[in-house]
């Protein structure tokens, strides 16, 4: 089969690759923000699996991606963790947001809102143009 540069299957593959890359870059910035936000809102400490369930509906990322981020945030002091034994199951590691985490979250939210607004404004013109073209 002769694959030419504008062969649809080659293009689809290239597009898919770029989509994957974009998704990864987007989530690497936002996952930490979402984790901090979830833990700030939580009334009780949460453990890993509980947190992944809260991400379930929205993200197409693998759940396993959250654990290294949780670890990273803990190491930086934004989260506090405690291993608690339980009767029916294994000891669980529970996370709560720290004071530093709350302060950092506040700043991050500010940046998010600004970025969000700016990005939307920029792409809105672009999407409008596309609609007109169709």
């Amino acid at each position, binding site marked *: 089969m002769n694959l030419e540069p504008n062969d649809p299957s080659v293009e689809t593959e290239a597009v898919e690759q770029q989509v994957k890359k974009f998704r990864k870059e987007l989530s690497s910035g936002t996952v930490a923000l979402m984790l901090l936000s979830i833990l700030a809102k939580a009334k009780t400490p949460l453990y890993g699996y509980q947190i992944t369930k809260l991400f379930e509906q929205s993200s197409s990322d693998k759940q396993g991606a959250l654990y290294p981020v949780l670890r*990273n945030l803990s*190491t930086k002091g934004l989260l506090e963790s405690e291993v608690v034994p339980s009767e029916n*199951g*294994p000891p669980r590691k529970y996370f709560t947001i720290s004071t530093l985490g709350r302060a950092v979250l506040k700043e991050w939210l500010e940046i998010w809102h600004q970025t969000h607004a700016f990005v939307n404004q920029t792409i809105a013109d672009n999407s409008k143009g596309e609609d007109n073209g169709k």
Partner: protein
Amino acid sequence: MENNNINFRVDQYLEELKHALQGQDRALIQDALFDAEDHLRAALADGDNSLGSLLEIIQKYGTPIEIAQLYCEMESTVQHALHGNRPSTQPIIKNRFFAILTNGDAYRALLYTLLAAPLGIAYFAWVVLFGLPSLTASLLIIGIPLFLVFLKSMQLFSLFEGRLIEMLLGQRMPRRPLYQRKDPSQGMWNNWISSIKDMLKNRRSYTTALYMVLQAGLGLTYFITIFVGAFMSVVVFLSPMVDPIAHAIDPSQTIDINWYWFQLAMPGGFLSFIICLHLAKFAGSFQAKLAPYLLVNIDDS
């Protein structure tokens, strides 16, 4: 028995994950295995605990290769967060012998030599005064619960010592305890029995006790040769300056090393301080190699 199939499949997943993380820090591997098993077990317990749901859970969690990649990527970020940027510029002092004066690692290792002695003695006392008697008392049944408490304490001590070693000697040590498998269908008593069996079979409990016993000797050696050596070097270095002044202020203070000895005392003190720093760094890297070997065990069941 489906439970056995599920356990087998979970073990298989963890083996693949361990294989995918080959070459990484032992402690990183232990952490990754803990997170994976923790998640898979929690998800299974949340669902219908079937083989089918396990496959779905793995699909959502990520394959071993995907997870390994995530941990490796995150680890380089974590290392950066903990230790900051290693200065890539030229060192201030070019000569390798003298360069150690500006090396933070050596001073942290020196602090370790100070702490290692009292800690080593405490560890040794715990093993000899509690561990051994409880082991022998176990022959009389009555000692068994005490011996189990001792084994549990080994796990806690190894985490504690691991944190100390990571902070002062830069060797990555586990940040999570060992995963303890509990089967919810087995009931509390059976789970307890099997976790006790795991603890007894685990090589790590015993190698940790060995480490504790060795630490007394090692800690004291480090302290006497390195820390005291460094301390005395500083004293000898400063004495020609400090002693005469102290004597002038208060004549009852004797002059141990008078000012005219400074030509010998100061270079001598300076050189021996540098030698002690080198020894500290050497001791630190020896300890950093010994500790993971005895305190971290990723080959356990």
